[in-house]
């Protein structure tokens, strides 16, 4: 089946907690959405490349999140684990319009 890119509404910008993650479920995907200190929103796959830790519960520092399981440091921009660890999670584009936040996913 062809997959198409959809724009999925996940909530109000103002209601997302600051400097914290939010677990968002879209069809069969689990996504971690973060509102960074800068106010930017980032969305990445909610599965740590190490052992599948839930990244949405991690601690955020700048543009990175620390996995709550074993403290891997993952970039919320490109999904890359930081050295010396290796691995990558999927990232999703985000749109903010009229105070609503949308995540772009293939479903």
């Amino acid at each position, binding site marked *: 089946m062809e997959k198409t890119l959809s724009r999925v509404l996940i*909530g109000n910008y103002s209601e997302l907690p600051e*400097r914290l993650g939010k677990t968002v479920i879209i069809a069969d995907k689990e996504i971690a959405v973060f509102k960074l200190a800068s106010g930017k929103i980032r969305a990445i796959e909610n599965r740590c490349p190490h052992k599948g830790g839930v990244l949405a519960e991690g601690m955020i520092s700048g543009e990175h999140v620390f996995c709550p399981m074993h403290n891997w440091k993952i970039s919320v921009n490109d999904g890359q684990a930081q050295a010396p660890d290796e691995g990558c999670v999927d990232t999703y584009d985000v749109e903010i319009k009229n105070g609503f936040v949308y995540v772009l996913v293939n479903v």
Partner: protein
Amino acid sequence: MAKQKIVLIGNGMAGIRTLEEILKLSPDAFDITVFGKEPYPNYNRIELSKVLQGDTSVSDITLNEWHWYEDNNIKLYPGETVTTIDKDQQIVYTDKERKESYDQLIIATGSDPVILPLPGTDKQGVTAFRDIKDCEKMVDYSKKYKKAAVIGGGLLGLEAARGLLNLGMEVDVVHLSDSLMDRQLDKEAGALLKEELEKQGMNFLLEKQTSEILGDDHVSGLRFNDGEEMEADLVVMAVGIKPNVTLAKETGIEVNRGIVVNDYLETNVPNIFSVGECAEHRKMVYGLVAPLYQQGQVLAKRICGMEGEAYKGSVVSTQLKVSGVDVFSTGQITENENTKSIKVFDDWRGVYKKIIVEQGKITGSVLFGDTGDGNRLLSLIKKGAAVEEYTDPGQNEESGCGLVADMPDDELICGCNGVTKGTIVDAIETQGLNSVEQVKGCTNASRSCGTCKSLVSDLLEYTLGEEYEENQKETVCGCTTLSKDEVIEEIKEKGMTNTREVMNVLGWKNGEGCAKCKPALNYYLGMLYPVEYEDERESRFVNERLHANIQKDGTFGVVPRMYGGVTNAEDLRKIADVAEKYEVGMIKLTGGQRINLLGVNKEDLPSIWGELDMPSGHAYAKGLRTVKTCVGSEFCRFGTQDSTGLGIALEKKFEGLSGPHKFKMGVSACPRNCAEGGVKDVGIVGLEGVWEIYVGGNGGTDLRQAELLCKVETSDEVLEWTGAFLQYYRESANYLDRTSVWVERMGIEHIQEVVGNKEKRAELNERMDLALSAIQEPWSEAINNGTLLKELYEKVNA
């Protein structure tokens, strides 16, 4: 022009290391194909010992993940064995009917474990210790069987034996010689080693030669050639390794003990090279990674057609990866008529040191008990230094700096992970590192066996000079050069009120901090301003943010408070009802005398708390966890005091109190100490008319016995002294130091002096009371706060 084709036989440590070196030198020059008999990506064989000992898991020892091969365009055929090499046509054939041509062929087939030619080796329950499969087999057996015999008292055998002990088996080590590790240690060190390992629970049968493995299909024991027999359900053969040369031999490549190579790792057949444990260079076959990595470097240059130094052989050193045992050996280990030796033997402390000198030069050494000099000796031997350089070091040797200064850039510092001096120095310089921890994080050096830590520290000193000295002080984390005390002073002085302000004002390198300093600063601020400070949820580790224990699958554990381990029918009923209604994964009694509901979904947490209507047990907190109690005078025939009552009073008073780390208490009513106060942060023992207060015990990672703080008469005094002790700990310990570490650092006498001083005790208690006054019960707080519920506990179903 088409790329040159490299084929590598053997997806192991030496072969892949060579490819890494090649990729560094000429990233896109070659088409690379790898065949590996084992169905895994390249992993760290060394760490199998740690896997068996339970310190790490199979999934954590991978060196090159699958995507590494992809990222570097390497074609990998895992689980595929090369069966034939046609050296004239330059083609290899595999057991899966594949054929692959090559321009350059690297044979890195490693070694095979030696299996003694005894009757019965084919029985179930007989294994070697070489790969993941062997390791998994042993773990599996340990779950079903009790008795293991390890044949071979060398390095591998002893590491296997230690692992099997950790897995709960009884272990007998059978060894042919009368001394353990006789290839690496002399008799004296061997005897000390035996004594230590016996203390750890190993049993030894020395000077025993196995003649037969007994049993039907499955092994049941061993018979020795003196006719004696022993029982065993598992037999591990660790009697040595032999280079895996079959393929080379069949191809007509020159083979002696290993595949014969010259100083450039070339075999006698054009375009075929060999590296690793299967290769024999100047009559030497190596069985440790450090020399194999050196070979890999030389071979990489040769294959890339670069001028490079020839491989001239390596001086190796051995360490035993068994915790609690420090042995080191290098070079020559026994004396002869041409040698003199320096010996120090401290039987009392179990320290032994021998240095062998021949014609004024150090040629070998054996260390036991204190191996701090190991790296230095190794390096002196390598450079052929005169013995005086060791006995009478010049000023610059003293620091260890001279040693690392002399090393060439490509000298290996961390043999296990193949990290060179150049890489470490470069990382220190370009990434602004200033601690061993950071170097470990950035380069992997000292991540496996840790024996190179002192060299890494020397390199830091050598690279950073005075700056490093300064950095020796414990900083809060890598984001700052300030220590905890300095940060606290600044916070007080400048009246800072949140973590971001602290980071900005104090010039944190990373303006948003890291997972280490965020919770630390959050704690210090809360400790300094218990009433005013608003706790930052985003600076808390998930457990403390959500007030539950996260599990590996992202569900949570719920542990309600059960003061002093005492419960009642009503609470038990509520727990049972909730467990049933929410279909929790498991109901388990914890080691802290209460009940854990495991496998709860995050969304269900608030409703469960509501229905339980019990306070949080803070099983997740850096703060008061449990107060264990014994039965006490009310029921027990030995009880002298109401330990249960005092335990409950302590728990009610201090519940919810935060700390630099968690703290636990135990109250018993007689010296039998059934509540295990000897390994608690605060352990109280009741005697006739007296309570003894012990502090600084730990039953966790680093066991420590608690020390007596004082003896008092009434339970009110226990509360008073405990309050002062805890407050002093809260105010002066580094974040994440348990009381055990803190008491060790401060010294019990000092703590007695402070807490024993009546005025100070009163002041400490005053500040403690203030801290206690600000505590809110977290579960009810969460369920009564709509924003919290929405922000923290709800998922979005879009």
